[in-house]
């Protein structure tokens, strides 16, 4: 488990103080894939770097499995860092050492016996699918392969937490997906808690189970990814969700709309289509789909439909009420 308790990070520059992280408290459970989303400058990177104290918080505590890292001596901190893996947007491999040597470096940091190192390097290379690249230098690898080496290095000492600092932001969509799948696999197989920061909602939607949205150093919203996608509360959250699930209807279409436009949301197992067709049959209303999608988040369906309802006001209201009774969330747009 990873806990941030009232973390504040203030950067002192010559003229003024800049608040990077502003009194953030968050709990990340064991086995979570936790996404922290925000625009650049929101403080998410600073917050992440407070976990392994690459940056020391100005005030507040970071508890990793109950241990307050800010209280450790420098050699204790070094030992604690062995159990916190980290990967980076720009990979940061040692360019003058081979893939195998880069991974072995992490193992040597943990004083792994020499005869164990080679075996463990091979295990890790197999895990990330790079067995044939052991003696190659990072310069000869593609971005996705470099990130795989980064992951192997980060996992070398069996960490309990893996920190991902914009780990897929420098990669193309296809490679991003393969790296995300690998992270998910690692999370499931090894039970490693993953904390990732990103500005791409797609990444969160793909693998995270819980998330937080940051703005100006503060966490504005946090919760289950599914719930946040279904019902984002804060304007910033809605903006981010829009980047993935957009319901913009062209003005040309809106001009011809005569009835009431409603947004219907079906969460989880509720079979969306059935409810809508039942409603149309029961009440004297005409329904007209303007937009619709079923998103699968954490393998749970989330149905969102935009409809135009035509008919008597009373009938329309009854229809909406009926849909709500059947488990839908109805909202007039």
């Amino acid at each position: 488990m990873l806990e941030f308790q009232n973390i504040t990070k203030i950067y002192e520059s010559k003229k003024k103080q800049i608040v990077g992280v502003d009194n953030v408290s968050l709990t990340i459970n064991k086995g979570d894939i936790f996404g922290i989303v925000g625009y650049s400058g929101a403080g998410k990177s600073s917050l992440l770097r407070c976990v392994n104290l690459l940056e020391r918080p100005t005030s507040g505590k970071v508890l990793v499995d109950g241990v307050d890292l800010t209280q450790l001596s420098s050699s204790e901190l070094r030992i604690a860092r062995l159990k916190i893996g980290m990967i980076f947007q720009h990979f940061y491999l040692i360019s003058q050492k081979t893939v195998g040597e880069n991974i072995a470096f992490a193992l040597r940091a943990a004083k792994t016996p020499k005869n164990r190192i080679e075996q463990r390097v091979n295990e890790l290379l197999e895990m990330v699918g790079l067995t044939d690249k052991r003696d190659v230098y990072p310069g000869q690898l593609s971005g996705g392969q470099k990130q795989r080496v980064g992951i192997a290095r980060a996992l070398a000492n069996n960490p309990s937490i893996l920190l991902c600092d914009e780990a897929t932001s420098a990669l193309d969509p296809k490679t991003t997906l393969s790296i995300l799948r690998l992270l998910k696999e690692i999370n499931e197989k090894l039970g490693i808690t993953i904390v990732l920061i990103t500005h791409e909602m797609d990444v969160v939607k793909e693998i995270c189970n819980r998330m937080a949205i940051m703005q100006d150093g503060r966490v504005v919203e946090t919760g289950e990814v599914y719930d946040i996608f279904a019902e984002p509360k804060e304007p910033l959250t809605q903006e981010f969700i829009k980047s993935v699930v957009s319901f913009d209807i062209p003005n040309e279409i809106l001009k011809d709309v005569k009835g009431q436009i409603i947004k219907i949301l079906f969460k989880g197992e509720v079979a969306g289509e059935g409810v809508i067709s039942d409603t149309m049959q029961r009440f004297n209303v005409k329904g007209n789909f303007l937009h619709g999608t079923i998103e699968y988040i954490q393998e749970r369906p989330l149905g969102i439909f935009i409809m135009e309802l035509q008919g008597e006001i009373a009938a329309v209201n009854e229809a909406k009420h009926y849909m709500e009774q059947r488990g839908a969330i109805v909202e007039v747009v």
Partner: protein
Amino acid sequence: MFDFPYFISMLPDIWKAFKETIIMIAISVSISLVIGLPLGILLFVSDKGMFWENRFIKNVFGFAVNLVRSIPYIILLVALFPLTNLLIGSTIGPVAASVSLSVAAIPYFARLVESSMREIDKGVVEATIAVGATPWMIIKDVLIPEARSSIIRGVTLTIISLVAYSAMAGVVGGGGIGDLAIRFGYYRYDDTIMIATVAILVILVQLIQLTGELVAKSIDKR
């Protein structure tokens, strides 16, 4: 202008001077590598934001380096006579000249090492700190390998500067090619020796530069 038979007759003297130059450079380069490399690393890792951040060390060594570097070599050479006498027992000859050459080259090379390390992406160092590496591991397995190529270029620059300095050392009896150039070429208006020594120095510097560049390129794995 260039008297070829005379040049041939002078070859033994030129050869002797050449050997002296090589001795001076070899001794002073070795010493400046052995002391300058750790000093350069120290300057780098004690800097702000680094893992051995230490303002006192940074300032003391930084000041010492700047101090030596701001003294013109010819003055340093004379000022170090007492030290040279103490160490070598003489102030004349290539070995004696190596003392002041080393003192001049150490801070020069140290600064080059420091700036080579500054070129390393901070993220790479940070990533290895995050991995839990010890400072010694970071120096040995990250800073030195990553800066290796650039350090080799620094060695090249240091050697070339030493070739120039060694000519000055000749003025006060250090011997070497520079000494020959000044004694014959300058004092005696001996064009043949002047041209020959300058040509030797030009070729020497070109060779050092070429070799340095080749080595630097061949060990870079990027």
